[in-house]
């Protein structure tokens, strides 16, 4: 079946440092990958959408300078949170989709910023 893995599952970083999270699709081709963040007391916000052979599109309030994303092949994507501060804490989800089929989510990376 289709599975999406994310690692690390939990991470703690000092304020002002950066951390990288990874997303791996197994059993299908992730032609489209979306990264979301759930901040405390909020729903899931879309950060950016990456589609193979297209430029990565960032949503308002999120930039490539702050959340650079790599989507080098149909099974892998990574995102880095640069200069993390308290407001960046939350659960980061990777959602991957093959064409028009269902979207599957990874278990998330929970980021704590000290």
């Amino acid at each position, binding site marked *: 079946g289709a599975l999406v893995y994310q690692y690390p599952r939990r991470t703690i970083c000092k304020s002002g440092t950066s951390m990288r999270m990874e997303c791996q699709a197994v059993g299908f081709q992730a032609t489209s990958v*979306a990264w979301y963040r759930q901040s405390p007391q909020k729903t899931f916000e879309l950060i950016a959408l990456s589609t193979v052979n297209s430029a990565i599109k960032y949503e308002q309030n999120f930039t490539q300078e702050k959340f650079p994303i790599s989507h080098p092949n149909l099974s892998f994507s990574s995102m880095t949170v640069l200069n993390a501060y308290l407001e960046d804490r939350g659960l980061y989800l990777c959602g991957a989709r093959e064409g028009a089929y269902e979207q599957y989510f990874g278990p998330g990376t929970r980021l704590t910023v000290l």
Partner: protein
Amino acid sequence: GQQVKQSSPSLTVQEGGISILNCDYENDMFDYFAWYKKYPDNSPTLLISVRSNVDKREDGRLTVFLNKSGKHFSLHITASQPEDTAVYLCAAGQGGSAKLIFGEGTKLTVSS
């Protein structure tokens, strides 16, 4: 503004009853509508989805109803069980991409 909205933050239903969860959306271009179930500290799990060319889809105890003219879709859970207690998120998307817009969630509690 909120493109996908769940107006009820919580819902309590007696065991055996029907749980009805509602979702409204704004974007006419959405053509994919889904319901996800989420436990605390877990990522959302897809329950059921429907595309814009149908107005109803059933899967076991779950039924999704889509009302395109009203920009509304709902999830009905029949014979609700305590194990159905969770947060339910509706989501909508378009064009076959992984971009989904989520509602804020409705916390369903099924009491025995």
